[in-house]
């Protein structure tokens, strides 16, 4: 399709993307860019834009998953609705939703914080010269390359109270996953193990872009390694660290796989926001309520993105 686009200046049509009519080579290039972007834009509208619109649409409808055609508009009643008998039917009145929100936030804050600290330690170790450095660098990639479901099963096995390395070996037969107060920490441990290496990789890349002569100068001036870390390394790493933090937090807020595989559908619905939404949407077939929950999650996540980006002036370029 692009091969037919005019390349000669006189034949160039006006640019489709600009309000001002730009002619000549610029206009032709704009047309070509438009054609090149078209497949991507169509795909994004098909799999992201339109489904998102449908989710927002259904969030204001009473609808069933098996017959989405027969939806009736009920406004915000999926979010908040009290019957004449005083029974709250909106999901915002469901204590399970708030438990899921609280657990997801605990999960996100602690796993991202721990990943950052561990990732920093590992990156600093790998960044220094020692025998076996390249081996450790390679070993770092292993947890990252393991599928989430696989790591969930691996850890579920290790947590097992009758023959797990941790559940039986270390804790002497304590069922970590059966108790909701310990289960959330067990989940955090899995996530930290799986994603610390990703953090370490990003931090390491940042460390390696720092100028070495700066540290030589600091050594000359008698600054200790400790001072160097807090006064030079950390401030200079800030941009790389912030971008990594944004992406990790967003990933953690969307957590689903670990909870669903290790705790089952029902417990996952009170441990992860996504788990709760999926249970309403797919298991209970409540297309309306499920979509309303999805919209709420979407708003929460987009709000956090905006806060991060404006508060820290994160640049993605």
């Amino acid at each position, binding site marked *: 399709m*692009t091969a037919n686009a005019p390349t000669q200046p006189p034949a160039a049509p006006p640019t489709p*993307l*600009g309000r001002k009519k730009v002619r000549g080579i610029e206009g032709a290039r*704009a047309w070509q*860019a438009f054609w*090149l972007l078209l*497949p*991507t834009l169509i*795909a*994004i509208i*098909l*799999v*992201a834009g*339109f*489904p*998102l619109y*449908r*989710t927002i649409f*259904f969030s204001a409808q009473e609808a069933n*998953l098996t017959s989405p055609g027969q939806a009736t508009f009920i406004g915000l009643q999926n979010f908040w609705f009290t019957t004449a008998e005083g029974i709250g039917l909106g999901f915002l009145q469901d204590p399970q939703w708030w438990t899921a929100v609280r657990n997801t936030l605990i999960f996100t804050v602690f796993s991202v914080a721990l990943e950052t600290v561990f990732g920093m*330690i590992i990156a600093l*170790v790998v960044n220094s010269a020692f025998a076996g450095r390249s081996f*450790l660098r390679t*070993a770092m*990639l*292993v*947890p990252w*390359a*393991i*599928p*989430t*479901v*696989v790591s969930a*099963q*691996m*850890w579920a096995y290790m947590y*097992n109270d*009758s*023959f797990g*390395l941790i559940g039986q070996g270390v804790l002497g037969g304590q069922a970590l996953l059966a108790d909701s107060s310990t289960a959330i920490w067990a989940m955090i441990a899995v996530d930290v193990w799986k994603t610390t*290496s990703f953090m370490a*990789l*990003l931090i390491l*890349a940042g460390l390696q872009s720092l100028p070495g002569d700066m540290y030589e100068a600091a*050594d000359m001036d008698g600054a200790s390694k400790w001072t160097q870390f807090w006064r030079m390394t950390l401030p200079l790493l800030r941009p790389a660290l912030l971008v*990594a933090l944004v992406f990790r937090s*967003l990933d953690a807020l969307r957590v689903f*796989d670990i909870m669903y*595989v290790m705790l089952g559908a029902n417990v996952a619905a009170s441990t992860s926001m*996504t788990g709760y*939404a*999926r249970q309403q*949407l797919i298991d209970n077939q409540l297309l309306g309520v499920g*979509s309303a929950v*999805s919209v709420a*999650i*979407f708003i929460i*996540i987009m709000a956090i*993105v905006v806060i991060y980006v404006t508060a820290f002036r994160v640049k*993605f370029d």
Partner: protein
Amino acid sequence: MYLKRTNPGLFYLQRTLFYLLVIVITLYLLLPFGWAVLTSFRRATDLFLPPLQFAFAPTTLDNYTQVFANASFRRGLFFSTIVAIGAVAVSLLFGSFAAYALGRFRFRGKQFIMYIILAVSVFPQIAVLGGLFTLITRFNLFDNPIGLMVSYLIFTIPFTVWVLTSFVRDIPGELEEAALVDGASPLQTLFKVLFPVMMPALVTTGLLAFINAWNEYLFALTFMSTNRTVPVVIANYSGASQFDQPWGPIMAASIVVTIPLITLVLIFQRNIVSGLTAGAVKG
């Protein structure tokens, strides 16, 4: 720096502590996977042994034969492969067109499109789950690998566009200008001039997108019922009775689906690190 001469005691203490830290880190990173590998070679009856005896218990390949005899696991491998490869191929093709436009052309609205693509890459998958489900059933694509493959474009396309754009920007402009002067069309320029230069970037991006598609769970769980992909098969792997988790075969299946990924990652180590850090994208 001169600690070795001035205070050898402190120097060796520091070194010892440092190597201790290295050992702890290595164990932390590798032990869980190592333990899974070990378990996959142990008999079901030996699972109750204390760790040390377990480590030296007799080796068996039973778990692997059992896993490969399992029809749903074999089907899972097949479906995972076609879905992941399909999603990656489409994303690389579309993504390289878009990256060429975004990295090389000047036009109004470019910034806006970049923001849209970035926004989609941070989309929570759950936000489109209901909408996509109704769409997929409408087109009779439920339980069809094509439907799943198309749904995966929501995360593979923004990712490939974003990373490839940052690569395209770094390619020196002279190459392309020479092609333009010689009268090549944009597609010819892309395929004949830029693709050969972009090859390492395409391999890296494709590999990372493949890993994401191979590991995806939420869509696979929701949009497929009998034609399951491997993450779902492994999550649902069950033994003779509901209460008897067959850990040996589960670990063997886990190793089988992980080994190709780890091998690829180790081969393309250097590219992967640069791909992950280019434009700082999610893993």
